[in-house]
């Protein structure tokens, strides 16, 4: 009908055809009437188009509007909740290394008429906006519980038997428990080349520390399990390494964005003889506040034993990608204080596990905060000069942090939670701060904490061994042994 009207009157400027055909001499009156009709038809069309446009825009933009207002509300809540935490415990730790930013959940526009063209999935609960990075695979059957592998119940005895049979591979070497440092990064290039440069530097930093302290490194660049992707990839790898290397007493997980900044400091393993998991955190934040940042799973030690296998099995179920992880995320956000709404991450899941099954696990967990097994970078990177002036390596705590962990910087991704200049400057400074401690043996030092160049601080001599005795960190440790 609209088409007919268009055809007869001509949309916007066409000559009136039928009127002319019917004989032009009808007179002005007729012409004016016809013009009015023409105009009214035009107006109708305009209104129709305008209406459709508004509908369409409302349908799409409305998601955005509600989303942002949700985020603001979330932010306000966060601020309200965390201020009391921070007032009580001044050294609260901070969000862990998140692969993806927490995306505020968008509610479906229930109060608006949904345009019939827009096809919304018919789930009653809110769906996060479509993630274009990771297309969710609908392969996981939520009824079948995910497992890391077939259940093992006698790992302690299996291990003991093996160690007896293989005296060439003891779990204690030179009086120290054998530790395996596990770290890794994604298999492909980083989003930006600068990310790979910093991964290279952090791996050099780890190589240096581990060489000096007799620790072996496994650098993982493979996704062993499609379902446990992102921050969860460490779980299957840890389990795999434990089972393949019975001679290893401790597996030490370390994030790729964490750097050693106290090369002299050695972990006081004797403190943990009765424990199986050593993790940095604050008992107050954990038990009283139930904060989602009470512990940090960016750096931790896990003993190779049955207890740990059980812990991994209990920890993994929130991990599988897709609806399980999303649902678990909601549970965690509801349970833990200050947690934004996003899918389940390994840190929140561990805190939840340890809190909800406290009697089962906490006895063997050592929540360490006497030294920086994990040190949040923001409060540390500006202080390096002060530390060099006042203190010395070997302390491991806030005076000379053991580990500086660049949480939230995400050098391998595209977007960080912090300004990139600050992040990279911080990483450069932390790297050079640590490298200076390594280069001391060789008589060199960086030309400033922001410089990749080095300068000589000790002339060459014909008797270099006196300096080796003085500066080699391994020898220092040897001498101070009881």
């Amino acid at each position, binding site marked *: 009908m609209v*088409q007919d009207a268009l055809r007869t009157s*001509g949309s916007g400027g*066409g000559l009136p055809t039928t009127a002319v055909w019917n004989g032009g001499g009808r007179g002005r009156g007729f012409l004016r009437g016809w013009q009015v009709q023409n105009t009214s038809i035009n107006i109708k069309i305009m209104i129709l188009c305008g209406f459709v*446009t508004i509908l369409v825009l409302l349908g*799409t933009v409305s998601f955005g509007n509600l989303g*942002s207002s949700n985020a603001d509300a979330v932010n306000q809540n*966060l601020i309200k909740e965390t*201020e009391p935490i921070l007032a009580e415990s*001044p050294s609260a730790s*901070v*969000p862990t290394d998140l692969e993806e930013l927490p995306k505020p959940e968008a509610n479906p526009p229930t109060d608006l008429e949904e*345009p019939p*063209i827009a096809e919304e999935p018919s789930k009653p609960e809110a769906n996060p906006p479509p993630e*274009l990075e990771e297309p969710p695979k609908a392969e996981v059957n939520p009824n079948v519980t995910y497992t890391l592998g*077939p259940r*093992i119940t006698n790992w302690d005895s*299996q291990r003991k038997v*093996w160690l007896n049979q293989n005296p*060439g*591979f003891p779990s204690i070497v030179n009086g120290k428990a054998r530790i395996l440092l596990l770290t890794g990064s994604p*298999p492909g*290039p980083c989003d*930006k*080349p*600068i990310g*790979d*440069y910093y991964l*290279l530097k952090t*791996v*050099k930093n780890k*190589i240096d520390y581990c*060489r000096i302290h007799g620790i072996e490194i496994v650098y993982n*660049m*493979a996704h062993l399990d499609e379902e446990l992707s992102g921050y969860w990839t460490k779980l299957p790898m840890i389990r795999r390494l434990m089972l*393949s290397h019975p001679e290893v007493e401790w597996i030490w997980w370390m994030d790729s964005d964490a750097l050693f900044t106290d090369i002299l400091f050695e972990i006081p393993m004797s403190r943990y003889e009765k424990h199986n998991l050593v993790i940095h955190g604050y008992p107050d934040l954990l038990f009283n506040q139930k904060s989602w940042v009470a512990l940090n799973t960016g750096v931790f030690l896990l003993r190779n034993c049955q207890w740990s296998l059980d812990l991994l099995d209990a920890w993994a179920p929130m991990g599988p990608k897709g609806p399980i992880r999303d649902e678990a995320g909601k549970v965690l956000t509801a349970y833990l204080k200050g947690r934004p709404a996003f899918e389940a991450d390994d840190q929140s899941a561990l805190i939840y596990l340890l809190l909800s099954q406290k009697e089962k696990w906490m006895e063997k967990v050592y929540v360490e905060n006497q030294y920086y097994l994990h040190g949040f970078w*923001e*409060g540390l990177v500006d202080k390096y000069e002060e530390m060099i002036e006042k203190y010395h390596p070997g302390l491991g705590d806030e005076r000379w942090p053991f580990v500086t962990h660049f949480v939230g910087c995400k050098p391998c991704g*595209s*977007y960080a*939670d*912090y*300004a*990139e200049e*600050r992040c990279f400057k911080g990483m*450069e400074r932390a790297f050079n701060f640590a490298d200076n401690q390594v*280069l001391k043996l*060789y008589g060199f030092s960086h*030309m*400033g904490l*922001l*410089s990749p*160049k*080095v300068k000589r601080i000790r002339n*060459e001599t*014909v*008797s*270099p*061994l006196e300096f080796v005795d003085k500066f080699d960190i*391994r020898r220092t440790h*040897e001498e101070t042994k009881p």
Partner: protein
Amino acid sequence: MIERCLGPHRCRRIQRALRHLKVTVLCLVLTVVVLRGTIGAGKFGTPEQDLDEIRQHFQPSRKRAEPHRVLEEIQTGGDSDSSSAASGAGGSNNYETFEINKIFVDEGEEEKPDPNKPYTLGPKISDWDEQRSDWLAKNPTFPNFIGPNKPRVLLVTGSAPKPCENPVGDHYLLKSIKNKIDYCRLHGIEIFYNMALLDAEMAGFWAKLPLIRKLLLSHPEVEFLWWMDSDAMFTDMAFELPWERYKEYNLVMHGWNEMVYDEKNWIGLNTGSFLLRNNQWALDLLDTWAPMGPKGKIREEAGKVLTRELKGRPVFEADDQSAMVYLLATQRDTWGNKVYLENGYYLHGYWGILVDRYEEMIENYHPGLGDHRWPLVTHFVGCKPCGKFGDYPVERCLKQMDRAFNFGDNQILQIYGFTHKSLASRKVKRVRNETSNPLEMKDELGLLHPAFKAVKLQTNQV
């Protein structure tokens, strides 16, 4: 006017057609907008993304920084100023436009070499053997042999202090060091990854000389120093070097006697992967090797000498490899009897003749051979993944480096029951199921607990 040209009838038809066209276009545009709004259009995005972008454009760090800013650590000194300054003044959080070289700051002055003095790596030491053996005797917990016939080895490699010019260069450096970490872990070898230029005069390929000397003198417990270029990868994880064979030698390089001593061919040996024993002989060799290295006139002139004296050498400044060929060819009596030119296995394997045969190797052979059947090292000479200009097409180089990496990585992954889906793929697949008796499973290559890694005696052997 159109009427007059074409006649009223036709004119009307054209106008009708135009009207229809307008309507069609309008409807089309509407449809596209609606569809984009609902199902999105790939890289053209959705209106929500547009909004996000607009929002970000006007409020760069506010939204994302807020929830985390609040949770930042507040120091007892009251540094809340610094935290707000961080998210406010830092500019965008997008690494897209970040220029890394802007953050580097060199403080102080670089040392200027004295132009009158001839170059030297350091003051001459003549009693290094005695110094070292004294030290080893006093430090029995740092033996130079970690097992019978197994010397303590330090693998030394490195790359330039600044980021690569080629954007993917750093990624390949990372893969290369991971590859070395894996081999060295299996074989009980320590790694030193150098990222410092110790001597500005010996820049480029010569940078290894001052570094090697420094490491030999600082690590008397190291018996052999194994230099390896950053563009060389281990492709045989099971091959253990035949240390016994080198008992009487101080320098082991891949090469051929005839090509070095008779032909004086500039590629008669390769200094991309070699072993150097920690003793006086090595220090003397380094002192004799170095003089062609200093940047500038000396290196240029030396280059001309080398091009003239060596077979097949192109014209360019002196490089350490040609200098070594020249040194050995002209001073065979002094050095030759302690140099072993190894060609029984690929201590250095030129990639050009190896990389296309990996599939054939997998089918016909097995790891542990180290030679042309299963090369120990695949060395990507001429590829220069870190720089902008190599001698070979970039794509071929990078593709083959991926293949070589996966070829080596498969040998590590099979220990844990995995393998790459193909030599070109980053993804891995399971080849062995998990069991509840993991210790009964033996990995085929015996790399989990190889004999050469077992902890043994702690005595010194000279």
